[in-house]
């Protein structure tokens, strides 16, 4: 696998990528910008999706989005929602579905910036998952330069894809276009240099590594890369029988860096190859003190007695060989124990021991090596790409298993809820039906019609007095009595004054009522409308009740069928997730066991060589004894 920027950088990049990949929509819309810059949320449920999304609760965001899409309540944000979904699918490693969404949006005329970013992230994920042809297809669709550092990352990715199919010439052209000082460019050149050497172009590859190995480096990342370049170059020179220049490169490597063991080992070999055996003892003795798990240290256990033998210190050499045999044997035993432990499934348990099962995703990385004996043998493997990708997938499956367990426990509540609703319906229905029946809608409608007819008559006849209020009616009744009394008294002179007073009061009452006639008529019509509205509501209610009597049982049956179907899906998926988790666990175990087997085979080869050297020394001593006797 090619060299990548170290973990700290990866984490930063992953964080940036998380923002960019999931906020691909920043190029096309809402998320990724502050509220001030963003479009207005036009459907509150889309805002709810963003609420989860901005908290990096991508699973909740996806399920909330899918639910709202199904219930058709984010129609104002149809394209943005699709884009967001594509980005979040990508963050969960669902590059197949994400690709389909991006393609659909691009076909529908997505803006170029969005299009290019979408293809870039798709290419990156496909490359990480080993889909090289598909990654090349995606990166080939990017038309314009990407913003900022993304462009450099794109170029590096493109070069890596070209190198993966051994097209070093085009990879060199791509890398040549990169800005010379950037970390991405340096990593690209380093990878190209190593790839060229492997392909047989030592001169071309060495020139690239030489450049990185010589130039001053700032920061841990570039210093580490410089060490790598010098070590790679030195070993190439050693292989080509050029120990002196190799020595110069190795002497540039930092003693406290990650590659110091390899450099010390190589330095010893460089001295030895120049017959400077005594000098070679210095780096190898230093290595000898370091933990024997490192391959360079393991090799130094053989190299040291080898040099001592050359210097004629046979007793010392023999002791060192015997010590080496002891160390190799112990290490091989430990490796056997570790392989057994891995096959018992303990490795994955240990790796994810302190990892909360609250989210899943592409951007997750294992933070610390587990505290287990096999970890020290697997550090390199566990930091590597294949292991990490499979582990992420396993971790995602673990999250899904938990999610399904939750639903398996919850779905029973829906049955209870449905039963409660059925019961409540059955209990309430008779009372409601009775209550509705008690409202004699026909009698009410007849009363309303009589009222409307009377109102029409009053209006047509201008029957002012018909709209008198209670007090006025009482007054009218009293005046009617007075009128009756006056009529009985006839034309008597002494009641003339009373008759005049009656007329005045009657006129006054009529005046009062008639002056308020129009407002009273309007009010009466308003009341009629209100009666009409209430009658309509009552009719609606009765109709709804009638419908409910037909629909409710059907709806209960519908819900029951849905619950049963969903329960079946939950159970089916639980089995599939379990099977898939086991398959991933087996894959991870196989990766680890293959790595440990390689280490064991290497130790076995060293062990054979050490035993052979010891036997040879005894033979020589025995032969020397015979020579003396003869």
């Amino acid at each position, binding site marked *: 696998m*090619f060299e990548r920027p170290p973990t700290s950088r990866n984490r930063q990049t992953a964080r940036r990528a998380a923002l960019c990949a999931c906020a691909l929509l920043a190029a096309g819309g809402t998320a990724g910008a502050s509220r001030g810059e963003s479009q207005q949320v036009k459907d509150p449920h889309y805002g709810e999706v963003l609420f*989860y999304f901005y908290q990096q609760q991508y699973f909740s965001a996806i399920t909330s989005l899918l639910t709202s899409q199904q219930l058709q309540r984010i129609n104002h944000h149809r394209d943005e929602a699709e884009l967001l979904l594509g980005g979040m699918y990508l963050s969960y490693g669902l590059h197949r579905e994400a690709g389909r969404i991006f393609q659909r949006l691009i076909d529908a005329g997505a803006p170029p910036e969005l299009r290019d970013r979408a293809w870039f992230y798709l290419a990156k994920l496909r490359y990480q998952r080993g889909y090289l042809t598909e990654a090349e297809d995606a990166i080939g669709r990017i038309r314009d330069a990407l913003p900022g550092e993304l462009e450099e990352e794109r170029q590096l990715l493109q070069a890596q894809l070209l190198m993966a199919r051994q097209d070093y010439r085009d990879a060199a052209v791509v890398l040549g276009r990169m800005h010379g000082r950037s970390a991405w460019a340096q990593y690209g050149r380093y990878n190209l240099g190593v790839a060229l050497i492997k392909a047989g172009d030592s001169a071309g590859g060495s020139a690239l590594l030489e450049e990185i190995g010589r130039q001053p480096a700032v920061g841990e990342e570039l210093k580490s890369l410089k060490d790598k370049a010098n070590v790679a170059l030195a070993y190439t020179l050693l292989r080509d029988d050029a120990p002196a220049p190799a020595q110069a490169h190795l002497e540039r490597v930092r003693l406290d860096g990650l590659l110091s063991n390899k450099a010390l080992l190589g330095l010893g070999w460089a001295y030895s190859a120049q017959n400077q055996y005594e000098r070679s003892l210095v*780096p190898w003795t230093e290595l000898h003190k370091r933990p024997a798990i490192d391959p360079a240290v393991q090799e130094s256990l053989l190299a040291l007695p080898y040099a001592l033998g050359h210097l004629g210190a046979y007793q010392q050499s023999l002791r060192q060989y015997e010590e080496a045999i002891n160390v190799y044997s112990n290490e091989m035993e430990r490796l056997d124990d570790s392989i057994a432990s891995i096959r018992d499934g303990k490795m994955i348990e240990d790796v994810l021991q302190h990892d909360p099962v609250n989210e899943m995703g592409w951007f997750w990385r294992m933070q610390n090596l587990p505290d287990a004996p096999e970890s020290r043998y697997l550090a390199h493997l566990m930091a590597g790409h294949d292991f990490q990708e499979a582990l992420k997938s396993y971790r995602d499956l673990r999250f899904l298993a938990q999610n399904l367990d939750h639903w398996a426990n919850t779905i029973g509540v829906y049955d209870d809820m449905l039963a409660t609703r059925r019961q409540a319906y059955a209990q309430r229905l008779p009372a409601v039906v009775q209550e509705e029946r008690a409202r004699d809608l026909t009698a009410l409608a007849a009363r309303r019609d009589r009222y409307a007819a009377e109102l029409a008559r009053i209006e047509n006849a201008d029957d002012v007095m018909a709209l008198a209020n209670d007090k006025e009616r009482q007054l009218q009744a009293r005046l009617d009595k007075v009128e009756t009394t006056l009529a009985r008294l006839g034309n008597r002179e002494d009641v003339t004054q009373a008759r005049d007073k009656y007329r005045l009061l009657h006129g006054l009452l009529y005046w009062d009522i008639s002056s308020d006639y129009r407002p009273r008529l309007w009010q009466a019509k308003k009341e009629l409308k209100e009666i009409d509205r209430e009658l309509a509501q009552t009719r609606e209610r009765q109709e709804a009740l009638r419908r409910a009597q037909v629909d409710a049982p059907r709806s209960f049956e519908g819900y029951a069928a849905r619950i049963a179907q*969903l329960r079946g*899906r939950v159970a089916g998926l639980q089995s599939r997730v379990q099977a898939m988790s086991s*398959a991933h666990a087996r894959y991870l175990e196989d990766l680890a066991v293959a790595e440990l087997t390689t280490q064991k085979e290497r130790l076995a080869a060293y062990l054979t060589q050490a035993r052979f050297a010891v036997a040879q020394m005894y033979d020589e001593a025995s032969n020397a004894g015979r020579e003396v006797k003869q």
Partner: protein
Amino acid sequence: MITNEFTTMKIQIEGKTRHRARKIPVLLWLAVAVAMAPTVYADGTAATSPARFKSLDQEAQTLKQDVMELNRDLLALEEELLFPASTQVAVFVSMDVGALFELDSDEIKLDDKVVAHYLYTQREIEALRRGGVQRLYLGNLRTGKHELVAFFTGKGPHDRDYRRGATVEFEKQTDPKYIELQIKDVTRNLQPEFSVKEWQ
């Protein structure tokens, strides 16, 4: 650098007897040389081949998709069953900028009954500030007139304790009712404003 450290170091060697070259393990260092060099994607062994991982990856993608779709269908069922459209009422909280008010908690009363009380984390506040909308309450109400009272507690301008309320009377009809409680910064008087929006 390695050279500075080791040029002056001496290793003690026991009495030399004779110099006779033995077979040199010349290929020893090649193991390391090969180990340290990067490799392109190789076929690997059958047990660890990229083809095996790809096959697992394909199946895992299908499985993840299926689980997400199941979640969608379950959530939709849950909502339809527990909060039918005819009685559903949802209360959302949103924040515009939010520089003048540091939201700490809120409380909702529906028809004088407390139905929700929520304490916010910093992450949730950030999500609100960036444009997220929180669904604070989902419940059921009969059709007709109702009153909603919301109280917001937090820190106002000059880091002073701040508690404000907002009230709305609304009519619940037979379609779902969505109410959004909005927290806005009013730059005119440098005060936060709390308003209520009824979604149609």
